[in-house]
């Protein structure tokens, strides 16, 4: 097996042996169970006159609640990816774990790519598995399924991959805790910058809008989150928000349009640049 896949396998194996996967599985099942119970309660809600809510309203409430839950889920996924990626390289350099391995015929680029592939596989599988479970539970509880579930899961997974990649880039130079904290703060700031951009849209202030655009370019996590929101919104809601004009676009928990193709192309370039920079940085690191 080529070294890059050996390293990837080792990364997955470590997560499994250290019981990270088991912990995630148990926590996910608990959260999905609770949320299924909570969503089921929506169907039993009544209006003031004691009649049950009409299906349209149940769908609307469910869709909005699902956006909030998905925001938290994507946040937890992104934060976990950043925390795990923070010490990915530096932890093994500092402990000496990489010394004996790098004396083998293994390129440093293979270490970087292998570790990224291993963690990326975990992020993608976890996002797909946990997301599908949650969507299945919501569907079972309320009969509501977001209009674009596959795209939703892909956007959520991609947001996790962005934080994983950023954490790993920082990990090639900084200690684990520093890299993890910087990645977390960057994720939060990108989200806040996205909100500032929304406010700029609402106020039609170009400077504020630019803050959102630039933050999406520097760290595309918030832009991908908007894609996830769009994938969860029913068509009726999107139509209603479009009717509101700029005011409808000034909401961090709503998306009137899907992410433009140019942005998605930039995301692909961003990953290539960050991975390339990680390899460049690690190659120059003295161990």
């Amino acid at each position, binding site marked *: *097996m080529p*070294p890059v896949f*050996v390293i990837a396998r*080792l990364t997955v*194996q*470590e997560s499994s*042996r*250290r019981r990270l996967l088991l912990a995630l599985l148990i926590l996910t099942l608990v959260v999905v169970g609770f949320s299924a119970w909570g969503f089921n309660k929506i169907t039993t809600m009544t209006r003031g006159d004691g009649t049950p809510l009409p299906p349209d309203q149940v769908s609307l409430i469910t869709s909005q609640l699902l956006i909030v839950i998905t925001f938290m889920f994507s946040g937890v996924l992104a934060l976990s990816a950043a925390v795990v990626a923070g010490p990915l390289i530096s932890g093994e350099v500092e*402990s*000496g*774990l990489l*010394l*004996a*391995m*790098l*004396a*083998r*015929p*293994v*390129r440093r680029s293979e270490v970087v790519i292998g570790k990224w592939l291993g963690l990326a596989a975990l992020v993608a599988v976890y996002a797909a598995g946990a997301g599908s479970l949650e969507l299945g539970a919501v569907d079972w509880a309320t009969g509501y399924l977001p209009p674009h579930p596959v795209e939703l899961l892909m956007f959520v997974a991609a947001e996790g991959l962005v934080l994983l990649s950023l954490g790993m880039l920082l990990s090639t130079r900084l200690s684990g805790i520093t890299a993890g904290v910087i990645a977390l703060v960057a994720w939060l700031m990108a989200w806040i910058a996205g909100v500032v951009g929304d406010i700029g849209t609402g106020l039609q202030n170009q400077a504020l809008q630019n803050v959102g655009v630039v933050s999406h370019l520097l760290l595309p996590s918030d832009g991908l989150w908007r894609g996830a929101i769009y994938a969860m919104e029913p068509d009726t809601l999107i139509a209603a928000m479009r009717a509101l004009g700029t005011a409808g676009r000034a909401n961090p928990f709503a998306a009137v349009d899907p992410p433009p193709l140019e942005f998605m192309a930039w995301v692909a370039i961003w990953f290539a640049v960050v991975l390339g920079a990680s390899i460049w940085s690690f190659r*120059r690191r*003295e*161990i």
Partner: protein
Amino acid sequence: MAELAEKTEAASAKGKVAGTPAVKTVELTKRFGHTVALAGLSMTVPRGEVFGFLGPNGAGKTTAVKLLLGLLKPTSGEGWLLGRPVGDLRTRSHIGYLPELFRYQGWLSAAEVLALHCELAPLPRSSWKDEISSALETVGLTDRAGDKVSTFSKGMQQRLGLGAALVGEPELVFLDEPTSALDPVGRHDVREIIRGLASRGTAVFLNSHLLSEVEQVCDRVAVVDHGRVIASGTMDELLGGTTVRVRAAGLTQADKNRLSSFGRMDDEGDQMTFASLDADRVPELVASIVSMGGRVYEVAPRHQTLEDRFLQLLEDEETD
């Protein structure tokens, strides 16, 4: 026929590489900012030789090994391992390395760690089983093959690291302080392993500050201090002198100062040690002490140990 030609070509290629030294460096230098970790290291380690690289803490021993393994980049100078430039990926298939800071995947078993090194080496999968059991047996971990490394003591982890350095019958093995975590039995085992490697023609680059250990197994040594090699040669070349210990009373400090004509002396009161004194001059020394009014109780000439020589070299270096 084609197979024969292939074998001949392979043998010829191996022969070409085999004719080159195991390690060769020319003016290898490493600076960390203003700190000179290694200053113009030039040396050659022939194949099949056990080479001791000695020096006090911070002398540049580990830096030299890391430079040779491509873990650090030299500021200037060049190095070759097994005839190929440092950093060459193919060469690393023939090299074993036990780092000073040894750490292995705690979530793997000992056998799995060795399998990982077989895979990265890379060795044919069919040979892994034999390689792993042979390495485990050599380092005395056969009984713990299936146990997680996280349950190992530090000494056992160092043994495992040594085992990992041995997989694939390397032509050159770097051992950086290989007995730092071992008990006397473990140290004895490591000496036996090094002798075993030497007997099958493997060159061993041994970084150590345990001088008795080096003295027992090394063919040649280089002493490094402040990033510079201050002496090198075979054991016989380095340890040519005789050390003479004298126990005498009744000498004043002025008398002792006059004895400096017999070479460097460690003055410990009634006990004086002359670090490098020709055995023929011992009667002359005793006569001088007696003529000064000193009473001689004991004169013990002995061959200089590596420790004597090492301390002498470092002291000379400080004086310069």
